[in-house]
């Protein structure tokens, strides 16, 4: 197979169809890889659960160290209030990370056989992840401000009532917020999909040109990109959740002390 025969398929290949009632459910190669990722994650979680001890040792110690590190990192990003979102945050991170890395490890065989492909290189998977994230941070916004309070950010009728004619500006700013809110899941899905899919194409082309040595640097790059994209997706999800749940009055209080702390650090000569 040479570079001339290269065909790039946006849609994943259907391996077999599963009859569910009167309806045939197509099972694609990305779905099979996703099941593999799920099996690995659930297996690791069960192993960690059943080796749980008061004094951590071995594998369980590693898991505890990693999760503790992520928790501390979350505290830095989202503050103390973000702690309640830890389960869904770490789920997004681990799922995307394992999908990306498994896709690279399997991708070498994958492009020839069309059997295994990174789940995140399929727009369906990333769109599903982004929709779940979108629903979650909208739900959290409604939980923090109430349904009408949250929708009031977008249809700002309150500003018109309070300020009169000047409130019309606030009303239109609210309408612009709708667009920025709706673009978030689309951007999340397309960013993840484009990065991983582009990486797979680059790897395939590199393999078709010179097989053993040429793809190695690209593979290293793809491993780093897989980590960064998992990180970016989950951190953006956390940021959007924190933005939706933040109260305007409290925000000023949170910002003020950090400014005071960093004030004396800046040298007058430098700053």
């Amino acid at each position, binding site marked *: 197979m040479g570079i001339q025969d290269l065909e*790039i398929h946006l849609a994943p290949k259907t391996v077999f169809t599963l009859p569910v009632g009167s309806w045939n459910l197509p099972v694609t190669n990305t779905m099979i890889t996703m099941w593999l990722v799920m099996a690995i994650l659930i297996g690791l979680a069960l192993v960690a659960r059943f080796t749980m001890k008061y004094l951590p040792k071995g594998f369980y110690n590693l898991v505890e160290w990693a999760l503790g590190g992520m928790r501390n990192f979350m505290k830095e*990003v989202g503050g103390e209030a973000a702690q309640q979102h830890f389960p869904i945050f770490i789920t997004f991170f681990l799922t995307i990370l394992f999908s990306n890395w498994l896709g690279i490890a399997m991708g070498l065989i994958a492009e020839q056989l069309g059997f295994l492909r990174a789940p995140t290189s399929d727009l369906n998977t990333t769109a599903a992840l982004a929709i779940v994230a979108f629903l979650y941070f909208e739900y959290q916004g409604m939980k923090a401000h109430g349904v009408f309070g949250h929708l009031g950010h977008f249809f700002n009728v309150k500003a018109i009532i309070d300020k009169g004619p000047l409130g019309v500006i606030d009303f239109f700013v609210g309408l612009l917020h709708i667009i920025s809110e709706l673009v978030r899941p689309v951007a999340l899905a*397309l960013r993840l999909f484009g990065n991983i899919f582009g990486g797979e194409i680059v790897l395939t082309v590199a393999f078709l040109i010179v097989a053993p040595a040429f793809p190695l640097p690209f593979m290293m790059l793809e491993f780093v990109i897989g980590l960064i994209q998992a990180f970016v997706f989950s951190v953006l999800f956390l940021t959007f959740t924190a933005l939706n749940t933040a109260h305007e009055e409290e925000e000023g209080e949170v910002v003020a002390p950090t400014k005071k702390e960093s004030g004396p650090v800046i040298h007058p000569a430098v700053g």
Partner: protein
Amino acid sequence: MRVYLTIIYFLIHYYMNLNTFAAAFAIAMGVIIPAFSIGRIGAKAVESIARQPEAASKIQLNMILAAAFAEGLGIFTFVIAILILNK
């Protein structure tokens, strides 16, 4: 001038699919401009870390997020290029 334009037109018409040209142009733009912006983000972040090394972790986090936003726009053109080619 007109002669050159005619020659270019015939070259494109006979040797190149216009779809290919559109996809190549889209991906070129989508690589050049985010490259500049990501370079600028990285340069500014390094500058501010050198000025204030204590804030390194916060600056790095924001740098990665900003770079992801800049790169996401480039990824849009990549998706569009793939869609044009797959038509």
